[in-house]
């Protein structure tokens, strides 16, 4: 009996375990009752086992790993900052600057003579009032500026959330 090509494909699927239940039952029945099928199956199984147990891998040169590591040593991946920056130092620096700014503000306000009157008559204030701000910040400029900032903000937020998500997935799979 001639075994058509698609029967051979069915047998390969059977060997790979990718047949549906109904097809699986049919093939198993044929393998029990039909000698042609049995012989063909034995042939294919021989090739399958041969490939599974005897395929060798090629080896690159002995220096391969070293070459790759030398190549990547020239690159730079930003390591997670938590590994090399002490959070206490960051907090310390932050508190120092904040204290300095607050101190300067308190000192500055302390120097102001609140008894003197100011107001619109002050020449400096009048100069400021004379500036035509609408020429500098037209509605379009402001809108574009705000939009660009919003976009940048959203992009940064997206990058941050994606990185967090990837870290979580990796840690879960590890």
């Amino acid at each position, binding site marked *: 009996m001639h075994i058509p*090509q698609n029967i*051979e*494909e069915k047998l*390969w*699927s059977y060997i*790979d375990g*990718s047949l549906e239940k109904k097809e699986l039952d049919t093939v198993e029945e044929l393998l029990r009752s039909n000698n042609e099928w049995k012989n063909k199956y034995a*042939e*294919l199984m*021989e*090739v*399958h086992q*041969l*490939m*599974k*147990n*005897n*395929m*060798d*891998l*090629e*080896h*690159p*040169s002995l220096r*391969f*790993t070293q*070459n*790759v*590591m030398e*190549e*990547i*040593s020239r*690159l730079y*991946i930003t*390591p*997670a900052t938590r*590994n*090399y920056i002490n959070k206490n130092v960051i907090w310390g620096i932050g508190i120092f600057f904040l204290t300095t700014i607050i101190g300067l503000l308190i000192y500055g306000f302390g120097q102001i003579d609140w008894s003197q009157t100011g107001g619109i008559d002050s020449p400096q204030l009048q100069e400021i009032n004379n500036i035509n701000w609408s020429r500098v910040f037209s509605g379009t400029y402001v809108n574009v500026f705000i939009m660009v900032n919003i976009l940048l903000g959203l992009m940064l937020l997206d990058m941050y959330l994606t*990185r967090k998500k*990837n*870290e979580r*997935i*990796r*840690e*879960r*799979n*590890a």
Partner: protein
Amino acid sequence: MDARTTDNEIITRVLRGEHQLYAELVKRYQNFVFTLALRYTPGREDAEEIAQDVFVKAYKALKDFRGESKFSTWLYSIVNSTSITFLRKKKLDTHSLDSEHVMEVADSKESGMSANQVEVKSKVEMVTKAIQLLSPDDAKLITLFYKAEQSLEEIAKILGMETNTVKVKLHRARTRLKEKMEKYFTQEVRDLSY
């Protein structure tokens, strides 16, 4: 490094700054990557260049690896794209990877060889020689399936194909391999079986 340490654990540590641990991943997969690269190009020097490029690209993109697929599947998909780019750069006919030309190339490998002319001393050698007689496409599929232990779905992802297409192509590749073995190694199969 403990062999039981998973790829994902190593990746997490590399990304946290332990760059030297990447060498462990290179050692684990260098033979697979190199063998796959050899399925695209016959020259060992070219294959080694591709393999090195693959590991450098993988390192650069490591932060984008989400761990949704196996690291090996992700790495082999880089082998596929890098090899095709490499061949394009070398102005080789990459289209031939999917065309009838492949068969001509494969046939040319056989030219001048008569049946049972290939001498082999072991089953491993026989399998290696039989694979060399296949087209790059067939050899690639068989290597990914049998040696790199990738499922049909994973191979589909690596090669950017439908799973069913991969399934059919793999069936045909194995049938062609069987034919080559029958043509050139019938005696050897018999001898080595005993």
